[in-house]
């Protein structure tokens, strides 16, 4: 079964979002998503400084099987990207919640709290299984 840490927020498009102490957020894809995609072979990250709207493409993960866009969970500015994930794409399979892909400075601080909590995300995953 996929793990769903309770201290994270989630999107319907299977990203996880972690609030950092400095008000920024780290974004990755969920364990459920990496399980569906299978072995990762390529990760494309956004450019630092890019302004993104919520729900906009902000990266790509490609497995042996398929390519999938990664979306910005909230509006904001890309302030960091995790090059170690693009160097070792399999880290997404090994530790989906450790392998953050980019960090955003949200345009509005409250936006993150409007995302799904762990319980709501698990319900979403369960509903998609049918």
């Amino acid at each position, binding site marked *: 079964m996929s793990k769903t840490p309770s201290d994270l927020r989630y999107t319907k498009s299977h990203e996880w979002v972690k609030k950092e102490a400095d008000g920024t957020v780290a974004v990755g894809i969920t364990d459920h998503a990496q399980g569906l995609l299978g*072995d990762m072979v*390529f990760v*494309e990250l956004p450019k630092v400084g890019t302004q993104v709207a919520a729900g906009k493409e902000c990266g790509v993960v*490609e497995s*042996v099987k398929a*390519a999938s866009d990664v979306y910005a969970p909230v509006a904001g500015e890309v302030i960091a990207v995790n090059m170690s994930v693009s160097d070792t794409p399999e880290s997404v399979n090994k530790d989906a919640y450790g392998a953050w892909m980019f960090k955003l400075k949200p345009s509005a601080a409250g936006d993150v709290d409007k995302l799904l909590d762990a319980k709501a995300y698990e319900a979403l995953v369960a509903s998609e299984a049918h």
Partner: protein
Amino acid sequence: MGHRTPLYDKHVELGAKMVDFGGWDMPIHYGSQIEEHHQVRRDAGMFDVSHMVVSDFKGEKVREFLRTLLANNIDKLKTPGRALYTCMLNAKGGVIDDLIVYYLNDTWYRIVSNAGTHDKDMAWMNAAAKEFGGVTMTERPDLAMIAVQGPNAKEKVYAALGENMRETAGKLKPFHSVTIGELMIATTGYTGEEGFEIILPAKAVVFTWQMLGEAGVKPIGLGARDTLRLEAGMNLYGSDMDETTTPLESGLAWTVALEPKERKFIGREALEKQLATGVPRQLVGLVLEDKGVLRNHMKVYNAQGEGEIMSGSFSPTLSQSIALARVPAGVAPGARVEVDVRGKRLTAKVVKYPFVRNGKSCLE
């Protein structure tokens, strides 16, 4: 629910992710497709290929029948046990299926063909056989099939199934087989590695699978089977060729025997016509030079015109993306083409394939 092979429960027990493949519930992987791929390139793996269609053709006129039915020449098979890879064509030269035919004795040949094309293959072969009185065709759902492939595959088969295997099957050259009762062992495969394909009674397959597992042969899913065959430059029916393409446009000219001229196989006239007017398209290998992954149906562009990726994936052995693409005639190895990868034009190099054989890169 799809058809299930006798190994279905075994796959589930081993934690396989099951998917539909040509109407069959088959394992796509047992955890990691890439690890399974490396397992076959570096050691030994086994594939349940019991979904493939085994049919026996018998009768006095069976060789005569196969001379007409198949684009490759059955008369290349001079001694019992020999195997031949060939296409079966329609009158337009389009590929109905690709298959392996085994010469068992003068009145008995065995064909192993694809699962996804079962119904049309059977209808076609039955209709063609009618003109050769006395040729009978019998499907063998009572048989199952395991492919054991990899540099250590043969040794592990001897360890699992007995040292007498070394005496009988160990001496076989590629594309040969030996039959011992209902057990048939062939030196064929779909990975570019050494190994055997074993056809055996369905009721014995679970036990055999278990014995191979205990000898250290790891189960491999259809996902790795696809990346292995792509690296080995082997065509996949339905992706790289179908009824709308001739073998000449599909990198399979080597499987078409136009000599002797007297042999009037189905599709011959169409192929001769295409050769006379010029084969307009060809299958080439591509290696992506930029980062990304080539996928089926992506568009390919170069000076000669447009083409399409027929089989594209990531090559675990080469750690880069490779593909088979159908492009206009005249595109030569060494040329660069552009591929539309999700809206971006990336550069790929045209190469001769196979990409990988016996664990090693064939790229210059």
